[in-house]
């Protein structure tokens, strides 16, 4: 009897040794524990055993069955562990190899700057409006308190649109490419009553010979606030807020008296050179200061022209050169780089 059991276990161990997977193990299980297994057959012989020995026999059979089962289970664990280790080994890869990257292009530095400006001024409560590039003399000059023969009206600087057959020359109000986004002050005030709080970003044109700081087309941002009780401090406050948001909290600033036909008092707005901190360098042309833009209180004449009550309302306006600020921010030495569209340049701005 015991001999038979020993043989059985020996045979099982041999089979398990060569088993490789769940399929093999299932076969072994049915071979050793199934209905047609030897152990089952032995179980059926219990009737032929003398009654007194039956309990012992039954107990022995059960022990053997449990032993078989636990041998199979432990082999199954072994195989599982082995397969797991194999998987780990198989999936050992060089993790320094590049991943599958979706392609990314680049946004133009002027677009990045435009967005930054828009976001700053939206956060300061300004609306963002769009304007036209092709304007007329009235909106570019007359309405901005710069009548014909005004010394500030430099015809040489302005691109005019050629009259055509269908569009005869209107000598008193010629079409032109706007030389400043200040036209948007006029357009906005013509169409809206105060309170007005807007910025407008767009392209302007001046007949300048292209060089590293001049381009015949360039970009400006115009700002305008008109309401009751707007004062010079409001103007200074908004530009300082802007400068801090753009160039950092610690920025130093100053306002200088200046002249624009459509604002009075007028000023130019400088920040401390962020490269030399005032020592003088090439960026600030040795002055220690960098000009950011022009500004001033809206001239009452402009209000009168657009039909806003200049006794009731006051306002301020400012203009910023976007190409200039972009070049300062990204340390771009030549404005022409902005419009060449060399990918080696563009791809630096992701």
């Amino acid at each position, binding site marked *: 009897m015991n001999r038979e059991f020993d043989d059985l276990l020996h045979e099982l161990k041999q089979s398990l040794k060569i088993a490789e997977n769940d399929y093999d193990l299932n076969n072994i299980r049915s071979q050793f524990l199934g209905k047609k297994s030897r152990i089952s057959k032995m179980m059926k012989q219990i009737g032929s055993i003398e009654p007194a020995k039956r309990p012992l026999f039954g107990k022995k059979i059960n022990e053997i069955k449990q032993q078989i089962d636990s041998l199979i289970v432990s082999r199954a664990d072994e195989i599982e562990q082995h397969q797991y280790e194999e998987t780990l080994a198989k999936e050992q890869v060089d993790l320094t*190899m*590049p991943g*599958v990257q*979706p*392609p*990314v*292009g*680049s*946004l*133009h530095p*002027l*677009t990045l700057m435009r*967005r930054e400006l*828009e976001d700053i001024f*939206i956060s300061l409560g300004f*609306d*963002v*409006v*769009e304007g*036209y*590039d*092709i304007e007329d003399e009235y909106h570019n000059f007359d309405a901005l308190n710069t009548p014909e023969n005004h010394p500030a009206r430099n015809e040489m600087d302005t*691109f*005019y*649109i*050629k*009259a*055509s057959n*269908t*569009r005869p020359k209107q000598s008193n109000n010629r*079409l032109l*490419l706007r030389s400043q986004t200040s036209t948007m002050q006029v357009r*906005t005030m013509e169409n*809206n*009553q*105060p*309170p*007005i709080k*807007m910025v407008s970003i767009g*392209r302007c*044109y001046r*007949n300048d*010979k*292209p060089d590293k700081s001049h381009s*015949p*087309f360039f970009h400006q941002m115009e700002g305008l606030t008109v309401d009751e009780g707007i004062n010079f401090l409001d103007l200074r406050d908004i530009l300082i807020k802007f400068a801090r948001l753009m160039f950092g909290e610690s920025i130093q600033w100053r306002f200088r008296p200046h002249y624009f036909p459509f604002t009075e008092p007028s000023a130019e707005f400088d920040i401390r050179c962020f490269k030399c901190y005032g020592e003088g360098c090439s960026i600030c042309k040795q002055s220690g200061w960098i000009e950011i833009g022009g500004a001033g209180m809206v001239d009452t004449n402009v209000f009168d022209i657009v039909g806003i009550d200049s006794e009731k309302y006051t306002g301020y306006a400012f203009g910023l050169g976007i190409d200039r600020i972009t070049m300062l921010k990204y340390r771009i030495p030549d404005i022409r780089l*902005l*419009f*060449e*569209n*060399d*990918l*080696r340049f*563009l*791809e630096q701005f992701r």
Partner: protein
Amino acid sequence: MKFSVKWLRDYINIDLSVEELSDALTFSGIEVENVEISPLAKELESVVIARVVECKPHPRKDSLYICMVDEGTEVRQVVCGAPNTRIGIKTAYIPSGKHLCDLHVKKAEIKGVLSDGMLCSEQELGLSNDHKGIIELPGDTCVGGKIVDYFELDDVTFDVEITPNRPDLLAIRGIARDISANLNIDTNFKEVKELDFYPDLTPSEHLVENLADRLCPRYLGTVINNVVIKESPLWLKKRLQAIGVKPVNNVVDISNFVMMEYGHPLHAFDIDKLSGRKIIVRKAHKGEKIEALDHRTYSLSDQELVIADSEKPVAIAGIIGGVDSSITESTTSILLETANFDYASIRKTSKKFKIFTDSSYRFERNLSSDTVPFIASKAIEMIIDLCQGKPISYQDSYPSREILSDVGLRISRTNQLLATNLTKEEIIAYLERLQLKVIDSTDERIKFSIPHFRKDLTREIDLIEEVIRLYGYNRVGQDSKVVTKSLTDKKRFKITRQITDFLFYNGFSEAINSSFTDKNSTETLKITEEDYRNSFIDIENPIGVDSSVMRTSLLPGLLKNVMLNISNGREDIKMFEIGKIYYDCHDKPEEKVFLTGVIVGNNNPKHWQINVHNSDIFSVKGIVQSLLDCLNKRVTYIATENSSYLQKGQEIKIISGEKIIGEIGKLDPLIAKKFDLQQPLYLFDINVDLILELYREKDLVYTEVVRYPEVERDISFIVSKKISHSNLLDTIKSVDTDYIKEVRLIDQFKGKNIPEDCRSLTYRLKLSSSAGTLTDNDIQQLMNNIFAKLSAEYTINKR
């Protein structure tokens, strides 16, 4: 805080609809949370007045009667056990099938006799505790009428939210006062009698001993003898039930009533149970215990304020009374507590023991000590009236009078802050409606005294707020012409950023080119004379001949950029520009925003794992499809052959409605040659202004997610090359609109075993049903239908 309209109308004569009253409350700053029919009226909705027309004893049980009841429209048989059941009695009847509170009245057999409905006692109706028999109504009562109408129970209950700064509104009188100020209607508050009005009520020195006057600024105790504890009259119970307060007995009901009326809690002790027949207000002794009315026993520390008799605590001050001293049916003498307590102390104790009562809720909001005599007098009056009580003595411990500071207000400051133009008289009129009184005034400044119940008014700004509350938040600025509107074109702003970002994240680099160009730029592209791109706007004083006109297309600039980058050694290029073009349109200059993109070389960079894919027309079409999908533009793509610079058979127009909004294509090789461009160049050119014009904000609405699994099935067939994918797609989709969730072309095969003029196509269908999991049978049926439909419309061979 709940109040009922009928109760409110005890104090202010208003006849407003529910909506009007809700509005008046809302604009007073009282948020209406819920409005409903009063609970009692709702419960008794189905109960009608009926007359017993026949009455005979039940043959099988002595105490029962079989009645025929006329309920106005029909006569019904009801079995009733009430001893007062008799012919001619007018009583309350509830038909079967209806509910009375939680009881569902059913047609039933009682001892073998059908009973259809039920006759009710006052107790069953919730009107009183009387359950001796069915309710008896006077002989002239109209049969068929509603009980709700007869007892005038039809009331409307408002549940309102009171902000924490306004404890005065936790009172129905307070709400009446605010509505009165808001609508400028007088209140009709009845004058309350002074305590010395009652001849037998005399001051005492031995009733109240206040040992903690910092925590209890005022304690007025009043002893009332001869009190008969019983059920309250119907009118009082109606008032309480309408706001969800359960009537208990006359004394308890009176204290609840007065609390709801004035917003100031009060409490009654059975004085015979107070040891020493007196009240001591003191801090608890450590370890003292009290069993409260909630039947929990609280162990006190020396931090809590208690109301005690000469031996032990009888109430946790301002929060909850004790069981031992509470009013019972055998009570005959009471001590009425009307007091005020320090709000911080109340809050601390209430939080510590987690006891939140109507009383603690009010006291912790800093009530006024000057309300105390009013509620005392009102309660005394009601106890005399309803409990036959005789007030005999009182003691008012009020060591330091509460004094509210006067508050000043500047007229100019008020108008500046509110953007109003109110005169001094108008401002005074508004604030006087709130019972503020002018103490003294100049042209610019008015000084007001504050009524005792408005402790929240301490600063100028508090008064300014009251002015605008009464003037009307929405009235401000109504007469001014200024309409604040945004000048921002949000659509353009958003879409421009979306487009640029989309292309950026899909590998395109943004270019910005000059607005100037030369006239030859369109000539090279063979653009015809009449095309708008040849209606140039000329510059009178150009900077050079190559910049003598404004650009009419973004393409020439981009082509120049491509050439520059190729000459710099680039092979794979994806670039775009979004910007203005300018042209002459019937003698007026037009400016339009366009989006143009170009692709040269491989669609993706070489990668160790991924095969390089050469760009083709489908690379660029895919980009445009995804972009326009993101912008929610439903467009169709149509093959055309009319662009002078695009290769024949490689040109797609993008159509939305009637309008061409752009094109996709391959630059004609002959034109490419002129630019020295060897590689194929694919491009798209889209009119952004047109997209904006046609753009509709995404109307994102959730549609129910199908809870059953999706099944995928492929269908493959050979079909003539002449039949387009889009036609086939439409046909497949037309077979069924419920099950087919998606159809996707997953394979095209030409060549081996396929006739020369044919191709084999494979479509993958995603199928599901919201009704249940699709069976194989359903699916097979659907696939058969699809195949049948395709076969009917085209010549196809199944693969």
